[in-house]
């Protein structure tokens, strides 16, 4: 079984989940090395950009992993999502510059989610895909609006941006590839049970 762990924001919590469930996960020392793949008790742990976890699972290059709903939706990933985690929750929001005109141009790291949102609202607008610092786009008048994740809302306050609309509630989930789920039921069910029990204990 190969499990994909998202690097960055969610990495420690993700590893914690599996450690708590009694899995022998890579240690901090392991991670100091340049290695990206670790074998422990017959399980392969791989560390990839958070946005790539759904890609690895969808293509069967990983059997399971932990990913935020934002990335799951943006990749239209069809994997099962048997566990939703209580940590790392945030919101996908439509944010406007101060005194923004009607929305005709919006910057985002999530073009697919944004397009679906705009179409559901019947709004004609140009989507400008960006790689980062999305709020900056509104501050610098690249676009009047942006779609991005809002956790603390800090940046939004600092730049006096306006939260116009909640597009989705985002939370991290355990995802399991469909074929793997169907053909390795024992393994999968055991993993899910262990993780759920650990979570209940944690509460």
């Amino acid at each position, binding site marked *: 079984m190969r499990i994909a762990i998202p690097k960055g924001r969610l990495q420690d919590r993700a590893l914690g989940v599996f450690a708590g469930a009694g899995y022998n996960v890579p240690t901090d020392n392991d991670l100091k090395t340049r290695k990206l793949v670790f074998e422990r008790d017959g399980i392969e742990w791989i560390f990839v950009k958070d946005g790539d976890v759904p*890609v690895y699972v969808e293509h069967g290059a990983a059997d399971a992993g932990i990913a935020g709903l934002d990335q799951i939706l943006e990749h*239209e*990933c069809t994997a099962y999502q*048997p566990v939703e985690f209580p940590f790392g929750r945030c919101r996908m929001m439509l944010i406007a510059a101060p005194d923004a005109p009607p929305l005709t141009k919006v910057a985002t790291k999530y073009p697919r989610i944004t397009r679906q949102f705009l179409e559901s609202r019947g709004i004609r607008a140009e989507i400008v895909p960006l790689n980062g610092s999305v709020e900056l786009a509104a501050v610098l008048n690249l676009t009047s609006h942006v779609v991005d994740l809002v956790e603390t809302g800090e940046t939004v306050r600092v730049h006096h941006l306006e939260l116009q609309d909640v597009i989705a509630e985002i939370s991290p989930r355990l995802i399991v590839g469909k*074929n793997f789920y*169907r*053909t390795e039921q024992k393994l999968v069910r055991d993993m*899910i049970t262990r993780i759920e029990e650990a979570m209940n204990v944690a509460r």
Partner: protein
Amino acid sequence: MAAKSRYPTGVHPLLVEETARRRRIEARFVDTFEKASFSEVILPIIDYVEPYAPLVDSAAAKQSYRFIDREGDLVAIRADFTPMLARALSPTLDAGTLPLRLFYRGDVIRVEASRLGTNRELFQIGAEIVGDDSIDADVAMLHLAAELGRTDESEPAVVYNDVSIATSLIAQSDAVREALAAKRMTAGVPAALRTIVAKLISGEATIDDVAPFAPEAAARLCAIGDALASDSLFSLHLDDIDGSAGYYTGLRFRVYAGRARAKVAQGGRYDTLYERFGQRAAAIGFTFTLDDLD
């Protein structure tokens, strides 16, 4: 990395070796089908969109090449054999000649990159029994699919279920759809269904558990289980349920093959499909998909 000319999405020529490989596979399937006394039919590569409209959601419709013909009708290039077969047969079906055992083969062409950029040409070969709603027919098709899924190096796995279970539960509360699709209990699921849904998700559900909700399905699954009992290739996954059943009405199964346990075939029962084309006839079939990129 031999350079080839570019071709439209979803097609490419097969040169000598590729063609030989394709024909070998075809021959193996055709041989098996004919031994099982199935007869071949050839379905057109294009057909009108309108007759299938009620069967195809707009997302699926957009996965096929579509265009307006010289008469102004909307035409699509073949993307799914099963409904075409029903349309082609309906006018000539009559009780006297049923049941029919038929098979078909050919390319299906999809224009739209799926979610993750996959975009492949597909060769499909499938079989169907028309006009026989018996459990024997179910079992016969399951065995036939398993046999075809067997490769030199490995045994296939055939996972089966009955879509009417999910259908009946979802009929009671749409929240069930989401829970079954995600394999996770959600707040929306009504109290009366939480136990069974929880069991389905956790995989603990037994036929007895679902019987109260879908007695017929339960009965058929029992009978099928008994008929297959001896055979370890088949496993009943009561929770293996799609959000939407499409045109399937009962038994649903998938075949996984090779070391990678890749899905190579899927099928099931669609006892109401022929009605839509003017002839009532039960039907069960499956389709193997060969991916030329593999």
